[in-house]
């Protein structure tokens, strides 16, 4: 199994399309960093909205590496599924398109092993993409902007997180984002087994993510109870929960706390269930599939 995984990773990282994602993330992160470096004040005023008139804002302190990373995560994580689908949707369909799937399926390895190796390779690719994003969004931002406390605006409330209390939250957030995006990878992987060309599964995955995200964001009470809790997209942004702190009786944030950890863990459990469902279905269908490509 380990050898199969190595082979799958070798194939993924020898494909030029794999590096499109890394290049796109680098470009987007750098564009945001440059914009905030030269016009961060305008962005902070926009984020604070009407609060900026009633507060004396220490712009130089707010505009630090931790804050920039938070901005980048907010802006980018919603778009990363496209980059994940680009590789995960190609895993089986791309092989069928090249004609190599039939050669793989005649090797003395079980189809279950083959599928698991491909899925784990997609998971590692997802994790590496997020690690790359973390390196640029967090490490490079810290290098360029230094560190300080961060402010998190939520429902007209400004929350301040002390800089000593931030780093572990980012590690947790990136870990959560890896699970969330692995769910997208699992969906693309499942759709990939039905096609002989990777365009179909990539477009289908993105379409599903877009439709589900719209449903997740719609403020319709009927959907709040009946649909939203079951959509994986409703749980993909729960990483933000790591940046919401509990408050004491006087309304002061408690360092080291998470406001609603059970909700974050529940969302993660939902995402993990979806991963098991998608990968299980993919293996079950592929095991019985006639390979005609």
């Amino acid at each position, binding site marked *: 199994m380990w050898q199969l995984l190595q*082979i799958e990773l070798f*194939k993924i990282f*020898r494909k030029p399309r794999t590096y499109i994602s890394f290049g796109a993330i680098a470009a987007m992160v750098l564009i945001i960093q440059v914009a905030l470096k030269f016009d961060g004040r305008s962005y902070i005023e926009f984020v604070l909205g009407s609060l900026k008139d009633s507060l004396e804002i220490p712009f130089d302190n707010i505009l630090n590496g931790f804050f920039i990373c938070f901005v980048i995560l907010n802006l980018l994580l919603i778009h990363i599924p496209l980059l994940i689908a680009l590789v995960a949707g190609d895993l089986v369909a791309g092989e069928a398109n*090249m*004609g190599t799937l039939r050669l793989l399926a*005649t*090797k*003395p390895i079980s189809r279950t092993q083959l599928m698991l190796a491909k899925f784990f390779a997609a998971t590692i690719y997802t994790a590496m993409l997020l690690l790359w994003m973390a390196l640029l969004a967090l490490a490079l931002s810290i290098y360029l902007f230094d560190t300080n406390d961060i402010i998190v605006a939520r429902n007209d409330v400004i929350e301040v997180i002390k800089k000593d209390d931030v780093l572990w939250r980012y590690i947790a957030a990136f870990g959560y984002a890896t699970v969330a995006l692995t769910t997208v990878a699992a969906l693309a992987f499942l759709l990939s087994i039905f096609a002989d060309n990777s365009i179909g599964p990539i477009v289908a995955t993105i379409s599903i993510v877009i439709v589900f995200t719209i449903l997740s964001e719609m403020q319709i009470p009927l959907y709040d109870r009946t649909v939203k809790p079951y959509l994986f997209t409703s749980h993909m942004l729960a990483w933000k929960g790591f940046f919401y702190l509990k408050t004491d009786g006087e309304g002061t944030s408690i360092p080291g706390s998470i406001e609603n950890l059970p909700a974050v863990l529940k969302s993660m459990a939902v995402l993990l269930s979806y991963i098991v469902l998608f990968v299980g279905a993919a293996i079950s269908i592929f095991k019985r599939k*006639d390979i*005609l490509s």
Partner: protein
Amino acid sequence: MPVVSIKNLNKTFKDFKAVSDLSFTVEEADVYGFLGQNGAGKSTTIRMLLTLIAPTSGTMELFGMNLRQHRREILQQVGAVIERPDLYKYLSGYENLALFGKMSGLRLTKNQLMDQLEVVGLADRAASKVKTYSQGMKQRLGIAVALVHNPRLIILDEPTNGLDPQGIADIRNLILHLSRQLKKTVIVSSHLLSEIEQVATRMLIIDKGKKMAEGSVTELFDPAKTIVKLSTDDVSAALSRLKDCKWESAITKTSGTSITFQVHKEQVALLNKELVALNIPVLGLQPGNSLEEYFLSLTGNNQHVATFTN
């Protein structure tokens, strides 16, 4: 014990029956020709042998083991090129070979891999990406991949498709080398009778998923059953001149412009001489084989067997 034993194999795709009640055996060191026109069911049968397609019914045993129950053990001893030699175009020939060697559970050294590439004449292009290879080079690399784990049984599905005459000759020589020198069992499919005839020891003709003929090539190409087609301008006159002659009993068919005889191959020249002696205008005398005639009737395309000689 036969290397391959297929019994009552059936495959149905929705309402289309691709393979129907097919049974055959392949013995050790056979070059087993699998002949049929396009769509006859050859590739479907081969894909079932390689577990790419599940049969609707029937049993398949390879090396005395049931394919469904011992898939892994069996596939360790099988190498295959299925239709096109599709490989990873963005990898080099060497990388492709190393990758598929690993997938077969082997840890081959660089020297061993280069030796394999040397056998198929690709050592000097080992580092080039496959996308820069010609069709013939891809086919040779595909064969190297099929042979990398030293299998007992080699399955080649239409291995000469898209190759130039030199490439076709190379594949033919390779098949003969595998069989005669290395004592491998080879199953080779083709829609070209001439190809199969030149390499196979035994063969099966399949049409519309059904077995039409099976046997050793020497049996099926029996020289005593050579078919000779005489083209003449007046068939009635020719028939009257042949009356009571020893060739009359050899006539198997007549048409508006031709008379067909079945004779021994060695008698063809004599037949020609005596037709001329009987003052029958010989516009053409075309020797063939009953199997060729039969195959032509299946394919309905003379071009397929244009190079056939008996």
